[in-house]
């Protein structure tokens, strides 16, 4: 028995398939063969159309997912921006230096001290010392939960810098747990004047104030013409 193909117009139809595939490849996802001839070859045409349909669906789905991912990414990026902004704001907010009494500045430190924050803190304190001419500043670290060697180092540097400007720096608010930890770490803070509580530091500072006033008064008696020359 001889097999025979019942195909009409084969050359034109193959050309059409080629055209359609080319346009799909070029990105035209609407192109279909859509032949209305029914014979042995129409199965292949229909199958190609089906494949193009599937491909179109896939691509659509992918584009949707990609869009979703992109929108999520931009959301995350925005959130990150906000976080960075807030961190910066927090830096500014979290290092207030205030003059609480004649000649006395207080810098309450709350939270964690990273290198960036201590830098801002030190700058604020030193500037305030220069601006106000105060000679005593109290660094209260009651609100600092962890003092490791880096934090201790920063504190030492801040105190040294303040001293260079002629101001005495007192650290208050070291908790018993932190005191023990500092000792075990082996850090020597004996170069810094420390007080257990802010109150102690205040009392000490006021005594210092009084003393320096007395010294001033004494100096005025001994050298009455000091300001004239």
């Amino acid at each position, binding site marked *: 028995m001889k097999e025979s193909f019942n195909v009409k117009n084969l050359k034109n139809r193959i050309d059409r398939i080629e055209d359609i595939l080319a346009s799909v490849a070029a990105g035209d996802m609407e192109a279909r063969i859509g032949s209305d001839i029914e014979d042995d070859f129409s199965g292949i045409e229909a199958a190609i159309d089906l494949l193009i349909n599937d491909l179109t669906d896939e691509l659509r789905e992918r584009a949707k997912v990609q869009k979703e991912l992109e929108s999520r990414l931009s959301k995350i990026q925005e959130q990150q921006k906000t976080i960075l902004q807030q961190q910066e704001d927090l830096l500014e907010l979290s290092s207030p230096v205030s003059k609480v009494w004649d000649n006395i500045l207080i810098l309450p430190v709350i939270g964690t001290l*990273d290198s960036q924050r201590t830098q801002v803190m030190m700058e604020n304190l030193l500037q305030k010392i220069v601006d106000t001419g105060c000679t005593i500043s109290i660094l209260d670290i009651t609100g600092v939960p962890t003092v490791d060697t880096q934090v201790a*180092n920063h504190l030492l540097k801040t105190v040294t810098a303040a001293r260079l400007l002629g101001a005495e720096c007192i650290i208050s608010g070291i908790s*018993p*747990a932190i005191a023990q930890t500092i000792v075990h770490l*082996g850090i020597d803070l004996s170069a810094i004047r420390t007080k257990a509580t802010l109150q102690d530091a205040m009392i000490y500072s006021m005594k210092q104030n009084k003393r320096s006033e007395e010294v001033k008064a004494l100096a005025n008696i001994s050298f009455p013409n000091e300001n004239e020359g």
Partner: protein
Amino acid sequence: MLDITCDFKSELLGKFAIETEYDIVTVRQTIRQFAKDAGMGIVDQTRITTAVSELFRNMYNYAGGGKVFIESGDVEGHHALIVTCIDHGPGIENLDLAMSDGYTSGMGMGYGLPGAKRLVDRFEIQSKLNEGTTVRIMKWK
């Protein structure tokens, strides 16, 4: 990969990456919470938190970051909180020197590693040049 001998049974409580200075703070807080949950007093909480803070800073400053595993386990009859820090940094050339007080290869005070050792109950360190450093500390509960 460096390996510290594992002669105890443990349960993993958490696994974290240290990549930024902010990670140091958050993981440190997590460990403080674990210590609190384990029933440690405020002094012990502060000690282990400070010790891990030193190790994290070393990883961040010298190795550009690393990984942290937190476990609870039974070691030598003690219930222990175990923290293992692994980095793939430059390694430590002279461990004895690095473990001695006052020596620093960078900008620190030189009390980080020896200080951390004094703050915990068990301290193990291994380091290979150009491969990395692994430190494991334990604090009895």
